[in-house]
């Protein structure tokens, strides 16, 4: 199973020789870096960890992506946007492949993107691995790491609802500045 970071370009085989190969590869990655998640349009799909691989196979660019949630309605739009951005950049239509394993986790979101989420008023997710370990399906308000208010920085926050504006977020409220905000759930 391929668990190497998606950004690692060094070992990919491209089928194009020498520096041409690496410059085309870099161009494809740059193009992918301009594709955003339509529900969080300031974070690219590369930063979000959705792009798992870029490879050159049988004279075609093969972009491997993984969905965030099984039912995420943005998946189809993202695929279409990938085709468009890569085609515009390298002049050929790529093949987009979806893989499920290993399953996407918020731990793959790049640190830069976590900062962008915070700046946009969305509390970034804590470590998903840690939350899976503390999961106690019993209590309604289980002990969990405090979520920091993206507006005033207070940790005195409370969950209002298990789901927010999208499947990947929950609704919180800050008990100091009283602002409601979205929390990107560790997943």
């Amino acid at each position, binding site marked *: 199973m391929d668990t190497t970071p998606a950004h690692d370009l060094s070992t990919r085989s491209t089928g194009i020789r020498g520096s041409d190969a690496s410059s085309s590869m870099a161009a494809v990655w740059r193009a992918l870096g301009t594709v955003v998640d339509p529900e969080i349009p300031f974070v690219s799909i590369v930063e979000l960890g959705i792009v798992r691989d870029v490879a050159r196979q049988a004279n075609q660019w093969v972009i491997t992506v993984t969905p965030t949630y099984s*039912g995420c309605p943005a998946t189809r739009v993202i695929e279409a946007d990938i085709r468009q951005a890569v085609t515009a950049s390298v002049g050929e239509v790529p093949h987009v492949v979806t893989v499920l394993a290993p399953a996407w986790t918020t731990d793959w979101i790049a640190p830069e993107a976590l900062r962008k989420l915070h700046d946009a008023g969305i509390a970034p997710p804590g470590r998903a691995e840690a939350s899976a370990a503390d999961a106690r399906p*019993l209590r*309604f308000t289980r002990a969990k790491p405090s979520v920091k208010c993206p507006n005033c920085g207070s940790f005195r926050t409370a969950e209002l609802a298990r789901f927010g504006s999208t499947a990947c977020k929950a609704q919180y409220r800050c008990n100091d500045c009283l602002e409601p905000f979205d929390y990107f759930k560790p*997943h």
Partner: protein
Amino acid sequence: MDVHANATDARLFDYLLRLGDNALVLCQRLGEWVGKGPVLEEDIASTNVGLDLLGQARLWLTYAGEVEARNGGQGRTEDQLAYFRESNEFRNLLLVEQPNGNYADTIARQFLFDQWHVLLLGQLTLSRDERVAGIAAKAVKEVRYHVERSSGWVIRLGDGTDVSHARMQSAIENLWMYTGEMFAADDTERFLIDAGIAADTRALEPHWQSSVNTVLEEATLAPPADRWMQGAKGRGGKQGVHTEHLSHLLADMQTLPRSYPDARW
């Protein structure tokens, strides 16, 4: 194709329909709450849970169609399987097709199912069929969140007002007879359990019982007494023998593609 592979694929197709139809039918039920949930946050939550289940249903049914094709069958698409089968061809549990009722009924149905679903998917992540294991690993992360939410609501309503307590208790009582089927393995399942593909649901029962009882106790609800279980003897939802509620649900769900078979959306 060798005979053994055929025998496995025919059963695997059926098993994938069970997994996919549970998710699809429960999603459709949750969708019935859209725009009329008891509070806005719950309206959104039940829809989001439904959305996760819809995504899972698509993965299971797409794979079912592929297995059907490689076994020499029609190789139906996810949409053909969802919209053009009759109720006796659906393989979902009787529990998930039960009507929404009041919100305690909806929560009880979700709670009893989620507690089972999370255990089932956890086992399926170890399936020898890589595709099954991959879908399960994706789905189980979503369902862990579902089980926290539904358990939380059982506690909140059970340990709430006199009215919410009485409704929650009666919802659990009314649905209890549909839970036996979840742990009954028929020939199809036994064959696939032996092949290392399906989860051994029989082994999940004590774990389910213990998690369910812990939540009921916290919710000040009484665990239902043992009783006769609907469909547990091999004639239930998994074999296509359904309650009357499923046909009504399907009539609603399938009307558009059946009225306009060429419609694209």
